[in-house]
């Protein structure tokens, strides 16, 4: 029997987003035993996750407390981790899948698994994930799709899911009935929180929106979140008693799941409860500000709406140094209210057009693209930008090149038809009269691709020279140092070239990450690994050029 461990040392919302992958594993390996490793602050969520047989919790809080306050912190933490992973290793997992986008996950996966080298079992998709999460803005696909790829699953269209117990559903149902909410009542949920300031739409906007909803839509409202997010709640409960129920700070994850099940629409910032809603089949109207963008973490599934500010700087690369967070005010209560009416089907087509034409916001609808990736397409057809085009191209690119480098892993390479699929999908959702301009922008990139390949070629040659020098029984140290310096200089050239191919900068991010994790062995061993990294970069650029060529031929027809 296969024994699989999924390492997910992230937060609440990220774990909910793992559920399609967990379901997929169980369906591909029905006889397998699927285990999950999470931080103990997410333990309550684990019993709700479908597709897992058992879970393990790492005492994250204790580790932090020991390292933060305990003079013997290293000793205690070492002993704890040694014992914890020692026990886990005894489980002899055949496969360990890390979907934690940082090295805590990578190392934990190594410690729990059977591998002999720290980085040898990191899947190509995981490397891609880690390298792009360091450059979040550039992620071209939804993390749920990425998680599936990282697990080696070729699956699409599986949406998140959480299971609460019948008793909890009954409890939620009884409580709502007690509040005068029955099946015929439109129940609108609201979640005003978010993990950082830049993600949180201002409270006064939420209040204004709620007042409009209460005055214009026959419904009841239910507020979710934690107790500290009580400004909106206090105001609404005081001014609209009977119409608003506050569940702030009152629900366990299971209860939240049950209440969300009875909620018709959730209006929310990009947050954990947003993912819970998608896992309960609740329609979502989500707001994505700061560095968040719906394409990466929006409400998964079909028919949800997402609003983003229409600003050149969104999604933000530097939220910590932005003084204004103006993006949060670009989205007005008016536009959110109009979007809600669209979602409820209470808006005429003319109004929808008017909303989509509004300056300051962009309205997207969720659905799956023609290759099965989650997508957020404009509600009304609009011109496609080169950045957006590059997203569709990259989905094909990475599905091909990462599958290729993943010998023996489950995700097959996307075929030739994938580009045709993109082309058709673009035609369906976008105007294509800007094709000449898009082609011009593509052509500007081509010489930079050539230059980049030349640089990578030089890197390969240098790596070979290092290898030869290293083979010498008495290595010439100064020669090796000189070669290493030359390689470092080349990497700077690669980084500079990355600035010239910005829409496809992920190529560089992944290249740099792959170089970073080359693991020490002999100098010759490292030289071989280095050469491979340069070669892979060249082959990826070739693939990208081929995709571009095919796509623009189709678009120019």
């Amino acid at each position, binding site marked *: 029997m296969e024994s699989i461990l999924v390492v997910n040392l992230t937060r609440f919302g990220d774990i909910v987003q793992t559920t399609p992958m967990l379901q997929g594993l169980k369906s591909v390996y029905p006889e397998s035993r699927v285990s999950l490793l999470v931080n103990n602050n997410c333990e309550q969520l684990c019993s709700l996750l479908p597709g897992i047989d058992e879970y393990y919790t790492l005492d994250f*809080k204790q*580790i*932090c*407390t*020991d*390292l*933060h*306050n*305990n*003079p*013997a*912190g*290293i*000793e205690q*933490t*070492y*002993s704890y*981790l*040694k014992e914890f*992973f020692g026990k886990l290793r005894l489980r002899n997992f055949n496969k360990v899948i890390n979907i934690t986008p*940082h*090295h*805590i996950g990578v*190392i*934990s996966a*190594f*410690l729990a698994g059977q591998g*002999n*080298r*720290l*980085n040898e079992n990191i899947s190509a998709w995981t490397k891609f994930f880690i390298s792009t999460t360091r450059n979040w803005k550039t992620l071209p696909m939804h993390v749920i799709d990425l998680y599936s790829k990282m697990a080696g699953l070729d699956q699409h269209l599986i949406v998140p899911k959480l299971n609460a117990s019948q008793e909890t559903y009954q409890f939620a149902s009884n409580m709502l009935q007690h509040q005068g909410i029955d099946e015929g009542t439109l129940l609108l949920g609201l979640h005003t929180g978010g993990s950082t300031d830049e993600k949180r739409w201002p409270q006064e906007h939420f209040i204004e929106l709620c007042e409009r909803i209460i005055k214009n839509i026959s419904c009841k409202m239910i507020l979710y979140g934690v107790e*500290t997010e009580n400004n909106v709640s206090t105001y609404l409960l005081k001014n609209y008693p009977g119409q608003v129920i506050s569940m702030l700070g009152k629900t366990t994850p299971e209860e939240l799941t049950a209440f969300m099940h009875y909620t018709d629409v959730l209006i929310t910032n990009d947050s954990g409860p947003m993912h819970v809603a998608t896992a309960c089949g609740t329609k979502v109207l989500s707001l994505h500000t700061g560095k968040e963008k719906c394409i990466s973490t929006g409400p998964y599934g079909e028919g949800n709406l997402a609003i983003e500010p229409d600003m*050149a*700087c969104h999604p933000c*690369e*530097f939220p910590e*140094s*932005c*003084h*204004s967070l103006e993006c949060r005010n670009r989205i007005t209560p008016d536009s959110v209210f109009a979007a809600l009416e669209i979602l409820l089907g209470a808006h005429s087509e003319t109004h929808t057009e008017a909303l989509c034409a509004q300056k300051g916001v962009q309205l997207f609808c969720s659905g799956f693209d023609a290759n099965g990736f989650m997508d957020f397409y404009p509600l009304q057809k609009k011109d496609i930008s080169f950045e957006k085009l590059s997203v569709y191209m990259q989905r094909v690119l990475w599905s091909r090149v990462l599958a290729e480098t993943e010998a023996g892993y489950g995700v097959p390479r996307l075929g030739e038809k994938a580009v045709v699929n993109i082309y058709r999908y673009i035609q369906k959702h976008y105007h294509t009269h800007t094709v000449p301009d898009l082609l011009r922008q593509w052509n500007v990139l081509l010489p930079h691709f050539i230059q980049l390949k030349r640089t990578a070629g030089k890197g390969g040659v240098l790596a070979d020279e290092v290898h030869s020098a290293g083979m010498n029984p008495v290595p010439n140290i100064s020669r090796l140092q000189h070669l290493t310096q030359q390689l470092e200089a080349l990497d700077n050239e690669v980084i500079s070239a990355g600035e010239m191919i910005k829409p496809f900068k992920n190529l560089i991010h992944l290249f740099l990450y792959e170089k970073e994790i080359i*693991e*020490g*062995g*002999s100098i010759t061993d490292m030289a071989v690994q280095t050469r491979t990294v340069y070669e892979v970069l060249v082959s990826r650029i070739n693939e990208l050029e081929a995709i571009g060529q095919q796509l623009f031929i189709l678009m120019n027809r």
Partner: protein
Amino acid sequence: MNKTVFEHNIAALQKKNPVLAEQVLSASVSQEYQVVMSKNGLPVLKINRISLHSLYDPEKEGRSFLQAHLAKQSVQPGDTVCIFGLGFGYHVRPFTELPNRVVVLEPRLDVLRCAFEQIDMAGLIEAITICCDVSELQRAPEVLFAHQPTVKVNQSVFKQLTEKENCSSASNTTSLDSTVSKKKIRILIVSPIYGGSLPVTRYCTDALKELGHEVQLLDASMFNEPFQKVLGMKIDTNSTRVLNDLFLHLISEMVVGTCLDYAPDMVLALSQAPLSPQALQRLNELNITTAFWFVEDYKYMPYWKQYAPLYDFYFTIQDDRFFDELRDIGVQNYCYLPMAADPGVHNETNLSQEDMQEFGSDISFMGAGYYNRQKMFHGLLDFDFKIWGNEWDMRSPVWQHVQRSGARISTDDTVKIFNASKININLHSSVSHEGVNPQGDFVNPRTYELASCGAFQLVDERSILNRHFAVGEEIITYKDLEDLRAKIEYFLTHDDERLAIAQRAKKRVMQEHTYKHRMEHMLSFIQQRKPDCFYQKSAPSSPVIHDVEAFYTKHPETTSILSDALRRTQGAPNIDTVAAAIHAKQGPIEYPEALFLLIKEYEQLLQEHR
């Protein structure tokens, strides 16, 4: 480098500050610096990956910087505006349009050099004064604006600068840099288990939140019921004391545990809020500032002597002789902080007829039946007089006037009583006087609360009342029963005068005596005395392996790693040293090495959150 631009800039600086110009000429630009282009084509400096300006539109961000700061802090004509950080000057240029002297403190000479190489700054140099050292500032600037990216890369210098400013403006805290004084502070408030100051903790919580701080209330009143049961047990005194101590330790541990998790900048406890000496010591080790607001009469609650020296800051509702006593026991950071009102709770209310029926009367008193009140109110029983509150003597004739059979009155009903009574009697409690305490030296919360409600009150004379209200105009006092009766009779027949006085008192409360004012004052005082306590807590240093030998005796697989680490450091190795030793060796990462690297990752995560 654009030589012409650089020379042009240097020439401009030589005219204004030749010494600085020489220093810039001889400075070299650090390799950590990177000049990148913003999206709109302007050069931007990055230091250790921190971008000093917007990478989209630095000029627009510069204009926003001015507007954002002016919205927070007004600049008067004649004020010197000091900006901490020049960078490439995008945020400074808009300030030159103000009719004020602008001084820019750029702590890094090489930033100046880099800026001079990239941008023509000659005009800007002429319009402002540039200095590179805090000591060059002749005096503390009236207005200080901090360029946050510069602060990030120069935290210690910025601290020096704010210290300089605090020292010079001890009497005027409003001139503190808004970015410092308005820094969002994380505060844990500990309420008492029971007692009159319990609601005050809630008022403080709300006020601090309103000031924009992050506040968590640890409500110890949840233990009131078991605590009262223990008090009511007929057991010997020693056992009662032991049980009391257990409560104290239980709640103290809750506070410490909450602090470990919540990591507040400050813990604020109020009268009788239980914190054991051990807990206070622990908070001190955790580098958490502790403050206590003693809202009781020190003469009747002597327990303060035991605890006052253990807190970093001690706030009192009495001064003068109490301060002498605090000094005598070694307390240094004490401050007078009178009681106040919460206008969100204590406000004017339109009452229904039913409420007027129940709560209305010519005169009323709301409060507990202390000895002096029982005695004095004997003399008021011929009036339409309603008494509200508990602990009144059922055998006394006064009892006939006590409402609701002496039940405790909720805050909502208290506000209704204040609003419904024509005259509210306010008599500070005493257990030893027949009526007014002639030595009364603090003002009770009821004085402010009544005023905040726009309710008229007659209050007993207090020696310091005139510091808070204009006696005779905003508030009327009485010195004894005879005086009180005369004033009741007068004001019952002078409605307009009564209402006007009450309104003036209300205005004064709104201007000066809300809990928001008190909390602001409290934080300002703390910042003046300990300027870095909220700004930058000294981060706990990385943990180290104190006893390497014991470590590898227990974990023999670590022997070679720790031996390597020991060779790389003189003292006890920390996790960085161990990680460096692991990375320096050849060959794949082994299992115990991975355990250390995992600890290193966690440590790094913590550092980022510190």
